[in-house]
């Protein structure tokens, strides 16, 4: 560490990340009586994919039949890689937490019968409220405090350290347990709120031996204005699509429709299915941020064409992340917990994206459970033992390469390295229209540039953050593609395909675990399969034949 005098703190629980999952984890741990520190790369209240826009929630009344139906639908759409009891847990927990959110002051609208509509949250309001709740619970919050590496000893994870990037000082927190809630990885594709999501937590976890699961389920792009960031695209359901000549693009807009059209040429949309002032007013009062880029660019979205693109969302709306093996979202490493997009979402969504509703609900629930789990671990584990913690970071920290080979430090410019990684990850031709060849070649290039992550020589505090982000993105891309090449089938909601394997293969009814940094191991995981899930196998064959 090269900053000025370090800020040193001790806590029972350290939460890394201040999006919804981190906020709920910190609140939950503090509610259990734990002394909690939360650090965020940016600002608790504005960081992450949720804060700038709106997010849907799963809010099903506690009606047994209704919920069972929702669970079965989700099991099926996820290619039976999810677990029914975990989906039920989420439906139960999110219902409770959303009542809390209302109690804390969120002004949920009511319908004509006075029933509060707790199935959508406006991000800025929600996250400002969460900041208040977290601080009121007694959590110490460090903003602009990116974590760079975990601290570890023979008892497991015992803290982390990083930078106070607006003070040019280092921080170090020793803690009985750590929750990683740093979000997914969207590779700086400028999706709304997503540029803080660079896979930092995956790298920190992998450096202490944690496994990742579901990383192949990362084929996720979102429609956005070609010139802007807004990846909140639900309202495009009211749009008609046109080609460059103004000819309507016919056909069902599901599956690969937009991606294929974009390979042919520019695609434009007009929101002309919202064809009355009343409808337009309703849409403007729902996802208000959808209209902001168009209004500012002088485009009347209801009558004038605007150009669309697809921005990569990686594991943010994709599904992979740190593997969790206990009911309280513990990883395979003692003292290390994961929540939100930093954790794999497979246990509830399987091989499908949750879209907004499942994902936002997962952040709330996994955060709540991870926070409680971490608090409990801190109370019970390692009591009385002296910790001999050492920093676990090995990549992108401006230190010489582990093997001493590869380019010399200082040879590699961080922004150039990031562009090289993006060139293998963002293009539709590689990562959307996946083939063994395209993914294989891209993975080869990513492996080849991996030694470069330790040839960065960050000087300023900002460089240090970006260098570490580059390392995390390079690692994440290699895990994604390694897993992608190992799943030779098509399962679930289109989050992974290889053109050569369009069918579902019942023999691949497993999750894929990846681990390691120099050499990446991949292995199947069937531990989640119950006798009941095996009975579903015949249904799978039918689903695959469709």
């Amino acid at each position, binding site marked *: 560490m090269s900053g000025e005098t370090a800020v040193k703190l001790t806590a029972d629980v350290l939460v890394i990340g201040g999006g919804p999952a981190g906020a709920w984890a910190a609140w939950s741990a503090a509610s259990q009586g734990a002394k909690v520190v939360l650090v965020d790369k940016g600002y608790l209240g504005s960081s992450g994919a949720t804060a700038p826009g709106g997010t849907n929630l799963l809010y099903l009344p506690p009606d047994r039949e209704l919920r069972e139906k929702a669970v079965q639908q989700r099991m099926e759409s996820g290619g039976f890689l999810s677990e029914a009891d975990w989906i039920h847990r989420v439906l139960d927990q999110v219902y409770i937490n959303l009542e809390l959110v209302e109690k804390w002051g969120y002004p949920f609208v009511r319908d004509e019968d006075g029933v509060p509509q707790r199935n959508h949250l406006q991000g800025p309001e929600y996250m400002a409220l969460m900041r208040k709740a977290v601080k009121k619970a007694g959590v110490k919050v460090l903003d602009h405090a990116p974590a760079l590496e975990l601290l570890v000893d023979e008892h497991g994870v015992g803290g982390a350290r990083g930078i106070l990037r*607006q003070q040019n000082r280092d921080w170090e927190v020793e803690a009985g347990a750590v929750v990683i809630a740093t979000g997914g990885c969207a590779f700086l594709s400028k999706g709304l709120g997503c540029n803080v999501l660079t896979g930092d937590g995956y790298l920190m976890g992998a450096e202490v031996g944690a496994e990742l699961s579901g990383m192949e389920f990362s084929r996720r792009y979102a429609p956005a204005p070609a010139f802007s960031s807004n990846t909140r695209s639900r309202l495009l359901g009211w749009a008609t699509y046109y080609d460059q000549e103004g000819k309507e693009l016919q056909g069902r807009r599901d599956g690969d429709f937009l991606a294929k059209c974009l390979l042919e040429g520019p695609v434009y949309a007009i929101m002309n299915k919202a064809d009355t002032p009343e409808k337009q007013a309703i849409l403007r009062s729902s996802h208000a941020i959808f209209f902001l880029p168009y209004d500012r660019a002088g485009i009347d979205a209801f009558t004038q064409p605007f150009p669309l693109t697809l921005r990569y969302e990686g594991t943010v709306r994709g599904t992979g992340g740190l593997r969790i093996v206990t009911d309280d979202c513990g990883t395979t490493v003692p003292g290390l917990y994961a929540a939100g997009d930093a954790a794999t979402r497979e246990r509830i969504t399987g091989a499908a994206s949750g879209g907004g509703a499942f994902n936002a609900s997962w952040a709330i629930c996994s955060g709540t459970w991870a926070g409680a789990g971490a608090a409990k671990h801190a109370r019970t584990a390692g009591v009385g033992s002296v910790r001999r913690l050492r920093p676990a970071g090995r990549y992108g920290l401006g230190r010489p390469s582990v093997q001493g080979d590869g380019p010399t430090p200082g040879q590699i410019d961080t922004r150039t390295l990031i562009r090289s990684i993006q060139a293998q990850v963002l293009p539709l031709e590689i990562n*959307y229209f996946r083939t063994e060849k395209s993914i294989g070649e891209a993975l080869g290039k990513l492996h080849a540039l991996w030694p470069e992550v330790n040839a960065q020589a960050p000087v300023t505090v900002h460089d240090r953050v970006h260098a570490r982000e580059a390392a995390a993105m390079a690692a994440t891309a290699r895990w994604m593609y390694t897993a992608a090449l190992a799943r030779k089938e098509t399962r679930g909601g289109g989050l992974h395909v290889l053109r050569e394997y369009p069918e579902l293969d019942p023999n691949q009814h497993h999750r894929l675990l990846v681990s390691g940094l120099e050499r990446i191991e991949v292995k199947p995981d069937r531990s989640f399969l119950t006798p009941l899930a095996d009975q579903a196998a015949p249904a799978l064959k039918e689903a695959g034949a469709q």
Partner: protein
Amino acid sequence: MIELVSDDRCIGCNLCVKVCPTNVFDKTAHAPVIARQEDCQTCFICEAYCPVDALYVSPYTDEAVDVDEETLAADGVLGSWRATLGWGPGRTKLAAVDQTPFINRILPPRPVRAAGISDAGSPTG
């Protein structure tokens, strides 16, 4: 990307420095400066928090553009996102009049669902 910190309007509260998730601004003796524009992710958060409508985030994510403060002020653009969110004294919060729970009532005749693509027309998007 962020294009404007109005010297005339800014009261030096540094809230934008604090809330910007990608740390784009630096504090100075008075108005913060846009120190790392290339890190701006066009999330509009800084505008939402600015109490005096001194900031302008252009919709263009990948290119810097010239802006004219007088025109933006005259067109009512400065502070417009904060106003839409209903933040600031005497305003009704967008959250309190959120129509999202009801938009399925006005769905077009043939809703569409995208598989590998996010939430276009998906009721649970």
